[in-house]
């Protein structure tokens, strides 16, 4: 039976500010899951802490709203235990690139088969608009008493350098485009990272919806030009098509170069994708072939009477004197 969008909505009260970019991302996720028709009980949405991390409560799949910065390791544990689950991780930029930066880098190294969506609005919303790690140096939103004193992170470069095998950027008010990226990210074999530009109408008065729509960015004829453009419309191809070192290297370099474009001409779409890197599940299976056929969550551990199923006789025999 096909899943309808309403099947993925909950009755939990959504308390985001009116006009919040989170709504667009939430809708895109629900649309993607409906379109993919994944059974809700086989999907787990894992989040950190912050405005955007409340998302799982609004999506009718299993939801795990975790600790600030820790969505990735929680999700890692869930996916390792049950690789048959579809795991989607969500969180803010502060959650992922600030307090959770270590997990962000190391999750890339593992390349588990999951999708990580970052709501990137350059501020810490739920604590009233402090500068987040993606905010550029010297920027001053209305929520800041003084301009930002730290350099901003380029999340795309960080993701590529960390080993994510799918790196993309979406925009929260281009819901259909975002939905397609989410579907691609879920279908990707390996760890997909999706950075989503998202206005915070309450605290970020610079990168507003109007800003991205082109306010003040006029062409020669005085017409506002949107500040985002779609990579696929320019003939850009970020996909590694052959398991060939040279091509992989080229595609990485291309994506890194592309990621420097930001501001008046900001690319969205798929920057880089490489499915030739073994996933963590494949790496574990290479070590222990039974992992694939008999992953932890599927393993019986006891007989009906409670006696253990594991047989450690050989270990004990080695120690016998």
């Amino acid at each position, binding site marked *: 039976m096909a899943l309808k969008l309403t*099947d993925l909505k*909950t009755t*939990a009260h959504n308390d985001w500010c009116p006009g919040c970019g989170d709504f667009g991302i939430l809708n895109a996720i629900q649309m993607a899951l409906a379109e993919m028709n994944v*059974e*809700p*009980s*086989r999907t787990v949405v894992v989040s950190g802490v912050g405005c955007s991390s*409340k998302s799982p*409560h609004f999506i*009718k799949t*299993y*939801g*795990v*709203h*975790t*600790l600030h910065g*820790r969505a*990735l*390791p*929680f999700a*890692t*544990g*869930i*996916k*390792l*235990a*049950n690789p*048959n*689950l579809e795991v989607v991780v969500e969180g803010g930029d502060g959650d992922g690139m600030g307090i959770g930066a*270590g*997990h962000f880098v*190391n999750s890339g190294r593992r390349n588990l088969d999951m999708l990580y969506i970052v709501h990137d609005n350059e501020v810490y919303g739920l604590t009233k608009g402090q500068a987040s790690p993606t905010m550029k140096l010297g920027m001053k939103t209305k929520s800041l008493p003084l301009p930002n004193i730290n350099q901003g992170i380029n999340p795309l470069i960080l993701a590529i350098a960390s080993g994510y095998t799918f790196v993309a950027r979406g925009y929260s008010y281009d819901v259909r485009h975002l939905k397609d990226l989410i579907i691609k990210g879920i279908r990707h074999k390996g760890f997909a990272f999706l950075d989503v530009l998202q206005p915070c109408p309450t605290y970020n008065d610079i990168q507003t919806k109007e800003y991205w729509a082109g306010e003040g960015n006029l062409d020669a004829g005085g017409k506002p030009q949107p500040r985002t453009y779609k990579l696929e419309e320019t003939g850009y191809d970020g996909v590694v098509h052959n398991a060939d070192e040279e091509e992989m290297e080229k595609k990485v370099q291309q994506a890194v170069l592309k990621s420097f474009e930001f501001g008046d001409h900001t690319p969205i779409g798929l920057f880089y994708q490489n499915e030739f890197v073994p996933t963590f599940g494949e790496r*574990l299976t290479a*070590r*222990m*072939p*039974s*992992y694939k*056929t*008999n992953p*932890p*969550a599927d*393993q019986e*551990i*006891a007989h009906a*009477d*409670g*006696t*253990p*199923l*594991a*047989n*450690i*006789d*050989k*270990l*004990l025999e080695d*120690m*016998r*004197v």
Partner: protein
Amino acid sequence: MKRHDFSWMIGGVQGSGVDTSANIFARAAATGGLFVFGNREYYSNIKGEHSYFQVRVSKDLIRSHVNTVDMLTTFEEETIFRHALEVRKEGAIVYDPDQDTKRLDQIPTIEADVKTMLNGELAKAGLSADVRGILELARRRGVHIYPIPYTELLKGVGAKFGETSLSTLQRMLNVMAVAASFALVSYDEKLVREALKKQFRSKPKVVEMNIAAVAAAYEYMNQKFAGSFAYKLEPVKTDDVRLFVRGNSTVAMAKELAGCRLQTYYPITPASDESEFLESHAEIPLDGSAVQENPQVAEVAALQNKGNIAVIQSEDEIAAITMAIGGGLAGVRSSTSTSGPGFSLMAEGLGYAGMNEVPVVLTLYSRGGPSTGLPTRHEQGDLRFALHAGHGEFPRLVLASGDLEESFYDTVRAFNYSERYQTPVIHMVDKALTNSDTTMPKFDVNRVKIERGLLVKGPVTDAINGEIRRFQQTPSGVSPRPPLGTRGGVYWNTGDEHDALGHISEDPTNRDMMMEKRMGKVDLADREISLEERANFFGPEDADITVVSWGSTKGAILDAMDWLKEDGITVNFLQIRLIHPFPTEYVKKVLSKAKKIVGIEMNYSGQLIGILRERTCIPVEQLVVKYNGRPMSSEEVYDAVRLVSEGKAPKKLVLKHGT
């Protein structure tokens, strides 16, 4: 006090095979039916610093180390300087005469104050500050000195095998030192050979050469010193089925048996050994894996008949605990192992597991703290932290094992408790346990039962509108627990206070209900867990002195009790195993009959005794503590209890032994 055992010590530069030689010595003794207890001490260093291994062997059960050294076996100078004066009168030192002229001031790894002390002793005796001097000092104290020319003997062995490389030959130095020691106590050479075969079972050539080295050492010692050392070590005939167990493997083996299928860790001493053991044995044979004749069928069957444990080295301990919680949410028995500094980082994750009623086991190998503290040394300084780590109030269970045998069964219990009460369980072991090697009765896997509590298997049928009331109120406080991925509905988890579905709720009435539901599970555990799993009581009902302790001091206390009994001092011993929930009523009952209570702990402040006072209002006025990083020896406990019984001990008696 009369010891009937033999206490042997070997020392050397870290990374030079001290461990291997001690292991061969212990195995050879255990193969001869003797009981063995070995204790390893080492610096936080990989190569170059001094490490030593003390191995006690006896025909009677032993559970601890002692201060006294009966025989010190060395092959370099630092061990001689550091330990020569610990050897008892009539004891022995085996050494390489090539070291004779090595001077104390040339050894950079001996601390300045140790040098000052040794220089003082040597100067007082009018002796030179070199190996010759320190050995002479030992000799004057009645110690027998046995020089053995290792290099010459090794060259002889090499000649037989056409091996001339001195560095290759030197790898057999350890074995030769072990053999020389055994020759002096006339121990059966055949048993040494058997131990070697087991130690190097994958390398027959190595075994062959080492056996020749053993023979050469035996021959030399017998020729030169036959009959000169009074103690004889004799094998014992026994029908007992015993294991010789390295301390870092017991918890790991029990985790496999208990069905732990996700283990996460960040490297830390001394906890990582356990995870590495698991990683080396990550595929787990299951009961009933029948042997198949057809290889293709056999391959499929073999895969289906194998369990496996995913062992994940995480980026930090925050990730380690949160990954393990993720595994717990997915219905897999999951655990993480760490030591103090790593545990500090796990505090927030622990609270999440408590809040979301997730079963997870945290094996805590305590070591010297605070901060980095004494990374490779022993302490029981984390008990109060284990009890209180994390902000806010949430349920947890804390159990502490007293020896390696307990640590095996307790590991299984920890998982059972965590699933029965859907809560984190902290299982405390420590550096002294994990770095001890000992003989013990074979684990009885038939004693092990797996209890998964209210784990829901298969689809949920009572979801309303596709939503599962995961945190619904129940009379016991424990709700049915369908893992993530269970069909028939969905639910949510959050670190925020939440309603039955797992959605955020700040409603005060819901808050009260949820707090009471969660915290009530500790009371439930208190009512349900049997006394035999919570405390041990040793010795006579009526005794002059009642010792209260927890964790790895158990062995030293039990061994000391045997000697005290011979002296006519009666002692009984209450060992608390489940620290939280505390067995309050039982402890009150036992202590109400006590004449004199002594708290013995490996920490500064007497943490258990503080908890005991909090729970029972019973003040324990006499403390015996130790915090110099070295585990308590049975002789220290013996001396301490004697002092107490004579009324000569200060209120807080601090034990100091150790090098």
